[in-house]
């Protein structure tokens, strides 16, 4: 169900760019706090509610998961761009396979409580812990919510539109676009694969669904393909295979503790073989937040179940229905008022 529409102003009246970004973040948190404030007192004490079968139960509404892509995750957790929204990894170490401790919400909240006092001390304390100085993030008053645990993996943006997109670019840089396209065109037709009749390198604005279809055939395009220059391609194939195995395992609808440890093994194998991309010159470093986010997948699956429980594809589809279609139904003047009216009428019928 749609809860509300938050203003999307650019705040152009503020000329300083940094101040404008800070103001936009504060605006977001203020609106979210106004919307989510009522559940604060009921999280601990509970409220009686009747379910559809007529039984009254005491319910405790608690914010469990925040689903969003990287900019939204950074906005909600008040972290800087280029850092992990969940853990304390330093900006230069995102490419390493190493587990860093998650941020502790109580310590972060102690810092944010200083915003009511001396502003300079508040800014210094925020800089020390590496967080943005936001006034009262919306999750500070929500009970039993640890926002750093609530940030969940996002297959669409982190894997499909992130690592798979990078991997395809690296492979095209190594083997050459012509070789990969030729192989792609030579693939026999099969009802399970999408036939890319002109190859995969000439496409632009590729959607997540198309990346998913490409990842099915990707390994077949590069295995046994010679690298121009005569280098050995076995490590490239090993690294690509590890990442594609990770991608398909992460999309499982049901996991066991064995499959989660396999997921970790594949990630370790990718990290062991990724230096081949540095050696062949297609990549200068691996400081990618999306690559680092893959290391949080096993813990999130253990906490909240499989990744299709917190998929962003559903919210992207709802964005079309509830924001784009609603906007098109208006005459573009005072659109929020018309959009809410339109939505209420549709829900009534």
């Amino acid at each position: 169900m749609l809860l509300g529409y938050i203003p999307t102003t650019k705040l152009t009246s503020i000329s300083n760019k940094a101040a404008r970004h800070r103001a936009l973040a504060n605006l977001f948190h203020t609106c979210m706090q106004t919307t989510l404030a009522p559940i604060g007192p009921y999280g601990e004490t509970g409220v009686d509610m009747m379910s559809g079968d007529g039984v009254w139960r005491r319910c405790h509404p608690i914010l469990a998961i925040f689903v969003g892509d990287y900019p939204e995750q950074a906005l909600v957790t008040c972290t800087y761009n280029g850092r992990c929204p969940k853990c304390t990894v330093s900006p230069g170490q995102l490419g390493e396979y190493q587990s860093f401790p998650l941020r502790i919400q109580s310590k972060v909240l102690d810092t944010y409580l200083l915003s009511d006092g001396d502003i300079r001390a508040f800014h210094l304390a925020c800089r020390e812990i590496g967080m943005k100085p936001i006034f009262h993030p919306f999750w500070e008053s929500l009970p039993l919510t640890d926002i750093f645990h609530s940030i969940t993996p996002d297959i669409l943006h982190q894997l499909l539109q992130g690592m798979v997109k990078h991997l395809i670019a690296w492979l095209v840089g190594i083997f050459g676009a012509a070789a990969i396209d030729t192989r792609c065109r030579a693939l026999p037709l099969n009802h399970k694969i999408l036939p890319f009749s002109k190859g995969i390198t000439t496409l632009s604005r590729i959607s997540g669904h198309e990346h998913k279809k490409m990842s099915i055939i990707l390994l077949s395009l590069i295995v046994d393909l010679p690298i121009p220059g005569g280098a050995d391609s076995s490590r490239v194939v090993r690294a690509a295979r590890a990442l594609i195995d990770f991608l398909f395992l992460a999309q499982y609808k049901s996991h066991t503790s064995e499959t989660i440890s396999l997921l970790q093994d594949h990630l370790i194998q990718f990290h062991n073989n990724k230096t081949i991309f540095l050696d062949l010159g297609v990549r200068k470093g691996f400081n990618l937040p999306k690559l680092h986010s893959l290391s949080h997948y096993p813990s999130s699956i253990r906490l909240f179940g499989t990744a299709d429980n917190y998929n962003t594809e559903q919210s992207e589809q709802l964005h079309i229905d509830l924001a784009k279609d609603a906007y098109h139904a208006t005459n573009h003047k005072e659109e929020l008022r018309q959009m809410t009216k339109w939505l209420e009428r549709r829900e009534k019928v």
Partner: protein
Amino acid sequence: MITPTHWSKRRRQITSLIAFHLIARVHRYLERFGARLRMSPCKRSMRTPLGPRFHLSLIGKLLDGRRCAAEPQWQYRNCWQYQGYVFLILGISYSNPGLKVVEALGLSFHTIKELNEKIDDELPASAHPPFQRKEVSFGGERLEFYSRDIMKCIGALYGDPQFAQDLVFAPEQHYTSQERTCRIYNEIHTGDWWWKVQVK
């Protein structure tokens, strides 16, 4: 029969995975949360929740008192499509004066404005709460944003009879065997978060 020594380690891993999933589908051992739940039934209600007849009555009002039978296409999920279908018919009848489809339908409205007024005034209030306008002043600008009362939204979703059979009220731990060596994770209630929050 092919003995395991002929297979590579990888293939053994994959087959054992597939076997686990097949086993998981057939035999699954559940451990339910034993302690007193945070969300437990506290009192019974004699009042029946709104059912599918409520939605059919909406269609009856739109069709000028003529009650339509409980045909599958007039169910709640298709109401919105019905609204779009109506506009299509209105468009067709004005371009082809010979078509008498609109009269045959027996609609109680003739324009979209009339339809909107009927939806607003005559239909009973929906379970979803209305949007409220709020203002925030920021950087000299006064910005409006709309939101709904979140507790009423939660109540509407929780009390929806269509979801009543799908709601889960307690966390569970699923295992592949009684020895509880291999845990299964699929829905949110099979994860660790809800179990740990209950304990807190």
